[in-house]
């Protein structure tokens, strides 16, 4: 990654964090906070962890792992809220 992409990504991350902080005070809610967290994760994964320019297999591993994390949370949460 170029110096520029690294610096830009960092600035983006800080801006997103600040937005998250401010929105929480205003009462942004769960969805917004998680969405911003997801965007930050994407930035870190694609740029800092170089998934964007890296091997396809690394991307597959990341996506599959993410899918299973969400799956477990969704399965348990769905149970609790639909009882």
């Amino acid at each position, binding site marked *: *990654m*170029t*110096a520029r992409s*690294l*610096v830009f*990504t*960092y600035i983006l*991350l*800080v801006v997103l*964090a600040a937005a*998250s*902080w401010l929105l*929480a005070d205003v009462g*942004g*809610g*769960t969805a917004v*906070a*998680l969405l*911003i*967290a997801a965007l*930050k*994760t994407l930035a*870190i*994964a694609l*740029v*800092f*962890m170089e998934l964007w320019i*890296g*091997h396809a*297999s*690394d991307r597959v*591993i*990341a996506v*599959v*792992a*993410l899918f*299973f*994390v969400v799956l*477990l*949370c969704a*399965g*348990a*949460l769905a*149970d*609790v*809220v639909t009882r």
Partner: protein
Amino acid sequence: MNRRYHLAVWIVIASEALLFAGLFALYWSYRGEYPAAFSSGVALDIHWIGGLNTFILLTSSFTIAWSIHMMRTLRPRAALWSLAATVVLGLAFLALKLFEWSIHIHDGIVPGIHYYSGPAAGRGISLFFTLYYMMTGLHALHVVAGLSLVVWVLVRVRRGTIFPERYVALELVALYWHFVDVVWVFLWPMFYLMR
């Protein structure tokens, strides 16, 4: 040859993500059951520490990524400084965490159902704080592990066994460090913002 190590570290990261997944599932399930208790729990957390720690970890991800860039552009000394900054930031994170926990303990906010004697009451509040300690604790352990690896890499850069023609170990450790940052990126809203 390097491909093998890169792949292995990504598999380790995937495994670790699934390790945290169970705790995330517990948090979201219990939050679904006790939304009010979890909200009040979040309100009780020390927000400035959470925010500052987030900024610290994000910056440390930048500094370690920067150190790789310095290596690639044949500036190992600058890489060394960047790594040192990463270590300092990591230590600051841990110090703040311990400080934060000490405040909580002083207020009677401790893990375990029999021990909680904090301000908020109601079913689910002790679950919130037990999860808080478990998740930030497990995360902190990973910060310690990651920091140890960063220190190891830093020493090797200093000694010259990691250098611009061979810095795979630095890349791999950086990957792990970024993962530790990503976990915190989710812990922060879950425990400090979503009220």
